Structure formats: C-alpha cells, structure tokens
C-alpha cells in the first residue's frame, strides 16, 4: 500500500480529475489525501476526503482573454497562491508522508515542496495550457513565463543550480487528454484521457421534459457571469429559437439571464452533466478541457466558442479532430451560431469523429491508467530513501 498526496488549486476543473484518480487509487487499497484551500475544494471532494488545508487567500477574479488573461492567471493567481501556500504544502508533505506527490501544473508549490523534501512527484496536467509550450512562437512571452517560475523558485530559497520547469516532473507526467484531441501533447507526457467520476451533490434534472423525437443541445460556457457571456448566451438562444420543430436545448445559466425562452429552450443554473450527456447530440461550450472531454467521451460533437487560457487550444483540437466547429465567443451572432449548430447536427461526420476521440480516450485508460502509472512510480521510488533533505 502506498500513500498519495494531491496538490491542487482551488479550481473545479483542476480538482475534478483528482476525484476519479483518487477513487481509482483508493480502490486499489492505497491512501489518498489532498492539499489545497479547504474552503474551495471540500465541496468538490465531499465530506470523507482527507484534506490538508493551505488556507485561502483572496485572489482577484480571472477575466479577460488572450495574453492578458495568461498574464493575469500567473501574476494574480498561480504565483501569489504558490508563495502563500508553500509552507502549508511542505507541512502537508511532512505530515502525510506520501510516497508520491501528485502536483497540478498550476500548483507549483507542490513541485517545490516535493523537490525540497526529496519525495518523488508526478505532474498532472488538468488543462492543455502548459502542454507543448503553446507560447513558444512568442519568445519574449515564453521568457516571461519561465521568469515567473524562476521567481517562485528563487523566492522559495531553492538552489539556483537545481532549478527545473515546475510544470514538468522528472519522474512522471500525466495529462488528462490524448493526442487525438491535443496534437501538441509532448511524447514525455502520458496522455491518459479524461478522468471522469461521479461527483457529490449533483442537481436534479426535469427528465420528463426531454422529447425523444427531437435532437438535444447542451449550452455551457462556464460559471463566469459577465456582459460578454450574457451576450453570447442570448445570441445562442436567438439562434435556436426558430428550430423548435427539430431540437430542444438546455442552457447552463442563471434563468434570469435568459428570460422569456420559448418552450423548447430551458435555462438551469446547474445540470447533472455526466447523466445528461448520453441524451445529448451537440454541446455548445467555451472549450474548457473538462467540458470538451466529457462531451467527446460520450461521442458528442461540439461547437466551441473559446474565451481564454487553454480554451482556444481545445477549440482548435476539436476542429482538427473533425469533431466540431469553432466560433467567435465575442463576435458570433445568432445567424452564424445557427449555421454552426445546424451544420454539426446535420453532418454525421462530426459525430463519427467525436466517436474516434472517444475511442482514443477509452484506449488511453483514464483513471485506471493514471493510477497504475502512479503506483508504479511509488513502487520504484520508495519515499523513505529521500526524506532526508533539509526543510529550512
């Protein structure tokens, strides 16, 4: 039996894969625990999970798009949160005595703590933002990004000559995607595909409302409420309004954002995503990796309107796989959106391509493959041998 500690940021999309992975490890008889801001991660993990809390620090909300959003996520979240949480992460590693620390790519405190304490650690990529260096064609931007990690290393008092890319463990690198979706996935990452698991506290759904004679569209653009998101949702609603004879659509959105919907459209603040997807023919999404992978894992094609971070990468991956279309989040109007939706719904090729990506996910093995790789790492690298470094 081995012990595993997940170091995660307070983001649902990054915590969710560790739930399925933790369950797979526990089913094999191993101990699992999490380290992160309990206020945010406890509701996702449920009451029984072992959590080593880091405390919570207020961060400015993430917004914007493009490079400004990438600067924002590093300067306002990843770097300050890593500096704030590093002492608590080191304490968690010392207390939990894991054989392997599993470090989210946006929780570099986990990489620094594991390295300093001499514990083997694995990288877990829950987004595609750090896979294959997507900023490489902007050399000064790439230098800035590496400078942010270097800054963290130096501020943690780590030896300059031991610095390494904090997003890539020398032991094991796991990614929640496959090359079929993410062509840039480096060869030294194990693409295990999405790690899906039942989540605690899923909402109910009006199943009787679904008309078996119609196609079904799910519209989900994340939880961020702002003017641009609301505009997009209203344009999608306008796009789908004349299509009542052929489809029904569920918008994951506060109902007040979409008042006076016709009878074949409904807005719900939350839906039981994994239970609903087997009944869905098309997902309209902002392109977060979780939503894209959950759709494709059910063989459901997408219309992707990317906003920020890895969403443009995922949108391009969907298009390259032939499993859907990309539209402009800020620009697409009802007419363009109606054309995209009817094209994907009307052309079986998209569904065939989505099924091929689903097959790549099934072959990649998901939680079982990730758990097997982690157990292998724990078995070949006994942590006790390395627990000798100074923590000062």
């Amino acid at each position, binding site marked *: 039996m081995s012990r595993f500690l997940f170091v995660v940021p307070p983001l649902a999309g990054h915590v969710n894969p560790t739930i399925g992975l933790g369950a797979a490890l526990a089913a094999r008889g191993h101990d699992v625990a999490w380290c992160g801001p309990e206020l945010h991660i406890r509701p996702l993990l449920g009451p029984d999970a072992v959590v080593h809390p880091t405390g919570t620090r207020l961060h400015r909300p993430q917004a*914007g*798009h*493009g*490079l*400004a959003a*990438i*600067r924002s996520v590093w300067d306002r979240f990843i770097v300050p949160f890593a500096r704030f949480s590093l002492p608590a992460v080191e304490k968690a590693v010392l207390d939990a005595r894991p054989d392997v620390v599993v470090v989210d790519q946006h929780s570099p405190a986990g990489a620094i703590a594991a390295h300093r304490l001499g514990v083997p650690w694995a990288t877990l990529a829950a987004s595609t933002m750090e896979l294959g260096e997507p900023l490489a*064609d*902007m*050399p*000064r*931007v790439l230098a*800035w990004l590496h400078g942010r990690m270097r800054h963290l290393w130096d501020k943690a008092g780590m030896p300059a000559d031991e610095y390494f890319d904090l997003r890539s463990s020398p032991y094991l690198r796991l990614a929640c995607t496959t090359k079929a979706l993410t062509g840039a996935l480096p060869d030294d990452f194990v693409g295990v595909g999405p790690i899906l698991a039942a989540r605690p506290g899923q909402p109910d759904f009006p199943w009787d409302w679904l008309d078996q004679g119609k196609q079904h569209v799910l519209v989900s653009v994340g939880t961020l409420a702002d003017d641009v998101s609301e*505009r997009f949702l209203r*344009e999608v609603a306008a796009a789908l309004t004349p299509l009542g004879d052929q489809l029904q659509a569920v918008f994951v959105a506060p109902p007040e954002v979409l008042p006076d919907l016709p009878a074949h459209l409904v807005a719900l603040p939350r839906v039981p995503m994994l239970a609903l997807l087997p009944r869905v023919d098309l997902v309209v999404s902002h392109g977060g990796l979780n939503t894209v992978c959950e759709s494709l894992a059910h063989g459901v094609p997408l219309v992707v309107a*990317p906003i920020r971070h890895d969403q*443009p990468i995922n949108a391009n991956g969907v298009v390259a796989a032939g499993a859907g279309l990309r539209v*402009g*989040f*800020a*620009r*697409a*109007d009802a007419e363009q959106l109606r054309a995209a939706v009817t094209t994907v719904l009307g052309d079986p090729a998209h569904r065939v391509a989505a099924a091929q990506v689903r097959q790549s996910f099934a072959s990649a093995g998901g939680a079982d493959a990730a758990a097997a790789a982690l157990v292998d790492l724990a078995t070949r690298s006994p942590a006790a041998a390395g627990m000798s470094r100074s923590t000062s």
Partner: protein
Amino acid sequence: MALFEEVAGILREVVGPCGGCPPPITPNATLEGDLRFDSIDLVRVDAALAAHLGTRVGLAEHVRGLELDAISGFTVSDLVDHVHHVHHPDRTGNGAA
C-alpha cells in the same frame, strides 16, 4: 489618415459584425482587448494586408516578437505605424527609395 482608413477597412472585414454591431475601430483600440483578436485573426489580417498592398507586411511575426504587454496593448495605431514602416520606408526617411 488615408492609410488608417485602408487598415481600418481591412480590420472591419476580418472582425466582421460583433454581435450584430460594427466594431469601433479607432486608433487607440487594442487588437487583443477591444477587437478580441486571437492568433488566427492576426494571420488573417496579415494575409489581407499583403493582398491589399501587394507586399508582405510580416504583421504576425512582428507582433509575436514583442513583449507580453506590448502584444496585449498593440493598437490599431501601432498596426498602421507598422504597415507604414514596412510599406513606405521611403516616406519615413530611413529606407531606400
């Protein structure tokens, strides 16, 4: 301002109507922030400029070589300056006639 109007026309074509409204293409509008440009848009404008002017402008290459803040803050006016510099080096006085 003739060049500005030419460039603005190309930008309007690439950007298209934004939620049904023509985008406000002013000298101070940033491509990334105000006009919601992504890397594909940059390449499209680059190609449209080359077709319109009959010469390669290297816009995408130029922008990608800048610092992060300079890329995020790259304005329509910066774009016009770049085109002017590349396309009319003789008028700036630092290129061959």
